[in-house]
C-alpha cells in the first residue's frame, strides 16, 4: 500500500522511502548518512533507520531513509527505491520494491530480473571504484560512494549539499572529502550519460527543516547529562547503549572544564561489569555526586540487586536503559520497549520505580539533565527508558534547549544546616520524614559536623539509620518510602494530551512510537474519518492525568513495542476499576512500529 500521489507530470515529489541493502563493515554507514544529511540540507523532512545485524563485518544490513514533505517520519514497510549492494540479499531486496518503484544494483551482481513492474538501474560500481584512484584497501568503501552519486543524479540530490554532508562527516578534512566527492561526482556523471530516468521519484528543495537539527538520542542523552552537571559515570559496554558514554567522553573536554581551575569536572569509569558499574554509580550518588550509568536489558538484570539497595537505602542515581530486543541476549541490534515491567518492579521484595520515557533525541536531552533533579529530589534511582531506535538513529528534532531551571540538589544538610537545625531544636534522622512528603534529609561524606554521619545499609533500619529487625519499624519505613513515590507522581513530567473532537476511543503510548502514532492518527482521520485522543506517557509512576484520561474514554488502545503489552499491565494495576477499558496493541519484532500496522490493528479490533 503506498500513499504516494503522483503529480500531473507523473512524478512523486518528496514522498518516498529509500532502502540500501549492503554488507556491514564496508563503510556504507558514511554513504547512508551522507544521503540523509544532504536531503535534510535540501530542506526536506527526512529520517534514517538502521536495521543492522549483531556482527562486525560480513552480514547483511539495511538502511532505510524516509522522505516525507509533510513530516511523517516513522518507519514504513514500503520501499519505493531499493539500492542493492549485497549479492546475498539482492533477491529479497528486489522483492521489496513497490510496483512502479526502482531498483539500483551493483552490476557485478548477476541478477535475473524477475519483475517487469519496476525500473532497474545497473551501476558499474567496481569499475567506477577502480577509476577513482582510491587505494585498493579503500575500494569497498569507495564503492558505496558510487550509489550516492548515481542516486543523487537520478532523484536530484544537490551536489553542494552532499559536499556539506561530507564536510560535516569528515570534520572539514580535505583529503577524504575530496576523495569521496570525486567518486560521487564521477558516478553522477556516469548516470547522467548512461541511465534514463523511468521511475517517478524525485526530490525538490523545500524549506521545512529550518530550525531543526539532526541528532541521535544517545548523543542527546550524553549532552543532556553533561548539562545536568553529571559528575560520575560508570558503565560497561553494551549495544545499543555504548555510544552514549563514548559520545560523552568526546564532549567532556569541550563542555566540562571547570571555569575556575580549567580542570575536569566529570569522572568516567569503564567498569569490569554492570554489577560494578551500578555499584560505583550508587557509591558516588550516595556521596553526593550526580551519578549515572547507562546500559541495556542484560545490564539492567545484573544491576538489579544494586537497584534494590539504592531503593531501600535511598540513594539517587540516574540509569539510562537503551532498550534492545529481549529477553536474554535477544536481538542486540534491534529495538524494543521490553524492559518496562522489569524496571517497574526491579529487584526483590516490594519496590517502586521511577521511569521517564523520552520520545526522541530532543526529549532525551531534556530528560538527560532533568533526571538528576528528580533523582536527587526523590533520593531514588531514576530510569530513563530509551531504546535503540531513539538512541542510535538520527532524529530530525528542534534544537536542544538550555535547562530552564537551576539544578535541584534535593534535601542535603551541610554543617551549617545541622547547626541551624540544632538551634531550632529540630531533630535530624537520616530516614525521618520531616516535611510529610516521604522524602527525608540526607547528609553526605565530608560533612564535618560530629552528628552528620550515619550508617547506610540494605538491612532493616529505623528512622535514625540504626539497625532494626522490629516488624513495626520495617513496615513503617517501607510505607514512608512508598509515600515518596506518591510525591514523585506529582513532580515528574506530565503526560502530553492531544485531543480531538468526537473521538470514539483513546490511544496511550510512550517513547519512540510517537511518530508512528501521530501518523496513524492522521490516516485514521483522513482516510477513515476517525478522530482520536492521544495521551503520551512521559513518566511512571503515573500522574493523575492518566487516570482522568482513562476515565474519559470507554476504550483505550495502549500501543507499545513488546509482546505482552507491558505498559498496559502497569496501567491496569494503576486503574484496576477500569482495567477492561485498556486494550493492548503490542508488537515486539525488533523493528520500530509503522503507522499502517498501528492503524490496521486498531481497525481490526474496532471491527471485532
Amino acid at each position, binding site marked *: 500500500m503506498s500513499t504516494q500521489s503522483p503529480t500531473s507530470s507523473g512524478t512523486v515529489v518528496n514522498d518516498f522511502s529509500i532502502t540500501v541493502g549492503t554488507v556491514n563493515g564496508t563503510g556504507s554507514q558514511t554513504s547512508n548518512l551522507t544521503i540523509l544529511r544532504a536531503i535534510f540540507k535540501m530542506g526536506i523532512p527526512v529520517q534514517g533507520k538502521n536495521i543492522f545485524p549483531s556482527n562486525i563485518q560480513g552480514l547483511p544490513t539495511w538502511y532505510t531513509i524516509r522522505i516525507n514533505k509533510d513530516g511523517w517520519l516513522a518507519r514504513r514497510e514500503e520501499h519505493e527505491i531499493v539500492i542493492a549492494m549485497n549479492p546475498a540479499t539482492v533477491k529479497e531486496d528486489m522483492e521489496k520494491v513497490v510496483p512502479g518503484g526502482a531498483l539500483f544494483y551493483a552490476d557485478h551482481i548477476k541478477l535475473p530480473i524477475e519483475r517487469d513492474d519496476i525500473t532497474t538501474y545497473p551501476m558499474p560500481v567496481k569499475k567506477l571504484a577502480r577509476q577513482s584512484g582510491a587505494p585498493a584497501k579503500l575500494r569497498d568503501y569507495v564503492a558505496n560512494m558510487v550509489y550516492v552519486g548515481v542516486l543523487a543524479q537520478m532523484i536530484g540530490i544537490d551536489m553542494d549539499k552532499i559536499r556539506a554532508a561530507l564536510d560535516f562527516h569528515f570534520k572539514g578534512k580535505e583529503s577524504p572529502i575530496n576523495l569521496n566527492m570525486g567518486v560521487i561526482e564521477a558516478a553522477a556523471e556516469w548516470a547522467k550519460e548512461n541511465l534514463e530516468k523511468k521511475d517517478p521519484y524525485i526530490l525538490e528543495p523545500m524549506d521545512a527543516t529550518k530550525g531543526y537539527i539532526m541528532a541521535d538520542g544517545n548523543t542527546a542523552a550524553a549532552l543532556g547529562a553533561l548539562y545536568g552537571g553529571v559528575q560520575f559515570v560508570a558503565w560497561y559496554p553494551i549495544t545499543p547503549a555504548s555510544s552514549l558514554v563514548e559520545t560523552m567522553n568526546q564532549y567532556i573536554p569541550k563542555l566540562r572544564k571547570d571555569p575556575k581551575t580549567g580542570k575536569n569536572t566529570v569522572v568516567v569509569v569503564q567498569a569490569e561489569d554492570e554489577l*560494578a558499574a551500578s*555499584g560505583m554509580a550508587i557509591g558516588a550518588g550516595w556521596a553526593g555526586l550526580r551519578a549515572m550509568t547507562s546500559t541495556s536489558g542484560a545490564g539492567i538484570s545484573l544491576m538489579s*540487586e544494586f537497584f534494590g539497595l539504592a531503593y531501600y537505602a535511598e540513594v539517587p542515581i540516574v540509569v539510562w536503559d537503551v532498550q534492545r530486543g529481549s529477553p536474554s541476549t535477544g536481538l542486540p541490534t534491534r529495538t524494543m520497549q521490553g524492559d518496562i515491567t522489569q524496571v517497574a518492579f526491579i529487584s526483590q521484595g516490594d519496590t517502586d520505580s521511577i521511569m521517564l520515557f523520552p520520545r526522541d533525541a530532543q526529549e532525551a536531552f531534556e530528560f538527560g539533565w532533568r533526571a538528576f533533579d528528580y533523582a536527587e529530589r526523590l533520593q531514588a534511582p531514576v530510569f530513563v527508558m530509551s531504546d535503540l531506535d531513539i538512541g542510535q538513529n538520527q532524529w530530525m528534532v528542534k534544537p536542544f534547549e538550555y535547562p530552564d531551571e537551576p539544578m535541584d540538589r534535593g534535601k542535603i544538610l551541610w554543617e551549617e544546616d545541622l547547626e541551624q537545625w540544632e538551634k531550632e531544636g529540630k531533630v535530624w534522622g537520616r530516614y525521618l520524614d520531616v516535611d510529610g512528603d516521604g522524602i527525608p534529609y540526607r547528609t553526605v561524606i565530608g560533612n564535618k559536623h560530629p552528628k552528620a554521619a550515619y550508617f547506610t545499609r540494605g538491612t532493616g533500619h529505623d528512622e535514625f539509620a540504626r539497625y532494626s529487625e522490629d516488624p513495626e519499624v520495617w513496615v513503617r519505613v517501607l510505607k514512608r518510602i512508598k509515600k515518596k513515590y506518591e510525591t514523585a507522581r506529582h513532580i515528574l513530567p506530565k503526560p502530553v494530551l492531544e485531543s480531538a473532537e468526537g473521538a470514539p476511543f483513546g490511544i496511550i503510548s510512550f517513547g519512540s512510537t510517537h511518530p508512528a502514532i501521530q501518523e496513524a492518527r492522521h490516516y485514521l482521520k483522513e482516510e477513515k474519518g476517525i478522530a482520536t485522543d492521544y495521551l503520551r506517557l512521559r513518566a511512571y509512576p503515573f500522574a493523575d492525568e492518566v487516570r482522568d484520561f482513562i476515565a474519559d474514554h470507554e476504550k483505550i488502545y495502549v500501543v507499545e513495542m513488546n509482546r505482552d503489552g507491558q505498559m498496559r499491565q502497569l496501567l491496569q494495576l494503576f486503574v484496576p476499576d477500569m482495567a477492561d477499558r485498556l486494550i493492548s496493541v503490542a508488537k515486539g519484532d525488533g523493528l520500530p512500529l509503522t503507522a499502517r500496522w498501528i492503524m490496521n490493528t486498531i481497525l481490526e479490533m474496532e471491527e471485532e
Partner: protein
Amino acid sequence: MAKTNAIGLTIADYKGAPTTLCQGCGHNSIISQIISAVFEENLPPESVVKFSGIGCSSKAPTYMLGRSFGFNGLHGRMPSLATGALFGDLSLIGIGMSGDGDSAAIGMGQFKHIIRRNMPLVYIVANNGVYGLTKGQFSPTSDRGLKLKKQGVNPFEPVDICMEALASNATFVARSFAGDPKQVKTLIKAAMHHRGTAILDIISPCVSFNNQPNATHSYEWGKKHEVILHDMQFLPNAKEIMLEGEMEPGEVREVTLHDGSAIVLKRVDRDYDPTDRFAAIRALEEAKQKHILLTGLLYIEPDRPALPDLYDLPTDVPFNRMPQERLRPSPDTMQTVNDLMF
C-alpha cells in the same frame, strides 16, 4: 580523665555500636586495632569513610568509628561502592571491611579490579577460611582437607588472597594475624597513608565454625606457626626517623610513602625487600611449603598513580561541594553544541 589524642578526642570518640559478633571472634580484635590506629593517627573520625560487603566481617564497620560515615553494601560489592563514593571527597580515607567469601568468592572480580585501578582504600579481608554469617560453609580460602560439621571434607586447594593481589599488580600487599594486634595496627596505619589500594589479608579466626587447632585459620595454629617477615614501625613523618646506635647494612629498610610518612622495617631472620615482587611471590610459596603463617608487609610500590590521579580533578573544593556554576556549562555553549549537530 581519659587520654586524649593530638586533636583532643578520646578513644570513646572513635567507638561504634557494641559488637554483636561472637565473643572471641577475630573480627572484634581487628575492629579494636582500626579504632586505635585512627585514634593514634589523630584523624578526626569524620575524615574516615567505612565500607563493607556482607558477612560477619562486613558487619564490623557498625562496631567502630560511629562518627564516620559508613556504607554496608552488597555481598562481594564493597570495592565498587567505595570506588564511586570516595570520589565524592578525595581528601577522605576509605576503610573497606570484607571477608574471605566476600572477596575471594562472590567478589573476586571486584577485588581484583579495584586493585587494577589502584583506588586508594584500606582493603581489609578478615580471613577466617569459612563463611561465618551463613553458619559454617566452606569458603575459597578454606584449607584443603578441612572437615566442617555439616559440609564434609573440602577437596579444593585454597585461594591465597595475597597471591591474588600480587597477580593483579597490587601496590600494597600485607598479611597479618588477628592474634598479633600490634602488627595489625601498624599495617593499618601504613595502609591509611598509602596512595592506592592496600590489601590486608588478616587471618581472623571464626571461633564458632573454624577454630579447630589444625585449621590454618585458628588461633592456636596461628600462634604456633606465625613467622614475621620484619619488625615494623610506622612513622607519620619520615623526618623523625632516627636509628638507634650502629646498624649493620640490611638491618633496617625504610619505605617512604607519597605523603612523606614512612614504614621502617627491621630485619628479623633475613633481609627482605618489600619492593621486590619476585621476593614476595617466593616468600608466599615458601610459606605454603613450610606450612607457616608468614606475616608482614609483603609488597609495596608507593609511587604508582592512583585512580583519581588519572582524572585531573579540581582540588580546591571537595567534588561533592562543587557548585552549579562549575558543573553546568554556560548558556552560550548551547548554540555551539546545536551547531555541532547536523
